[in-house]
């Protein structure tokens, strides 16, 4: 998450291509951008490609940055485009088109699992294996839901900022976010539900 206390940057220095200021800019934002790419793509090499292209593009286009959004939202926007482009390149056959997505959005996403796994202890909920499962669950989301969930719930952008980064209305962001969260809840219910079951059996 890029927190609100990130150092201020001189836009003037960035726009005039001052390398010292740009290096500071890179060091401030590369962590969150790399993590976002990693969660989005699930592959270190792909994430590194997105990271490099994001800052190359930022370098190239900073002069036209108009402050309609914050600098970090602007950067997330570039990174999101790069990540989605890479996914399309890697898997042209499985990528959802917009019409497919609308079909998917029309789908019934009512909850199917009603196991209460909340009482599992924290060290089981966040064990190394559980964390791997959490990451895998994100990878299984359709990418247009995945990117919304990552920006809003992992990177902590507001609904408005997520909309700015993805060219989506706030209503669209909210709809996709709800679907993503419910989808993840189903996936986690399968996984943690089983753990809850095992614990009960042991008692």
């Amino acid at each position, binding site marked *: 998450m890029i927190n609100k206390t990130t150092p201020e940057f001189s836009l003037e220095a960035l726009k005039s291509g001052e390398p010292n200021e740009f290096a500071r800019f890179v060091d401030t934002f590369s962590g969150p951008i790399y993590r976002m790419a990693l969660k989005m793509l699930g592959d270190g090499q792909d994430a*590194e490609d997105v*990271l490099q292209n994001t800052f190359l593009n930022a370098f190239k286009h900073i002069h036209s940055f108009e402050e309609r959004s914050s600098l970090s939202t602007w950067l997330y926007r570039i990174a999101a485009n790069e990540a989605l482009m890479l996914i399309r390149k890697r898997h042209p056959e499985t990528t959802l088109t917009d019409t497919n997505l609308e079909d998917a959005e029309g789908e019934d996403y*009512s*909850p199917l699992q009603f196991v*209460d796994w*909340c009482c599992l202890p924290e060290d089981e909920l966040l064990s190394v294996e559980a964390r791997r499962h959490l990451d895998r669950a994100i990878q299984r989301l359709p990418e247009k839901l995945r990117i919304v969930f990552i920006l809003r*719930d992992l990177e902590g952008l507001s609904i408005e900022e997520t909309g700015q980064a993805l060219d989506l209305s706030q209503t669209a962001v909210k709809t996709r976010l709800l679907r993503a969260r419910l989808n993840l*809840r189903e996936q986690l219910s399968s996984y943690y539900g089983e753990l809850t079951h095992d614990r009960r059996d042991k008692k």
Partner: protein
Amino acid sequence: MTQTAHCKSLLESLSDYVDGTLNEDLCVELQRHISACQNCSIVVDTLRKTIYLYHATTAEPANVPLDVRERLFHSLKLEAYLQH
């Protein structure tokens, strides 16, 4: 173990509810329903927990591995500023 029409009609409000941004009328309606419907109560609790767990996984500061940072600075022709 199926959901009623009322459960389904409240589904759209769940995100706003767990984010604390749901308007008051709907919030009251939802809370009243949850206190009487075990399924929805579990859905709300586990949904909240789902978001909490993902927050927990990103609570640590995001760092770029050293070798990745080095290659990044090279690709941007900023090698001279690697020491920072």
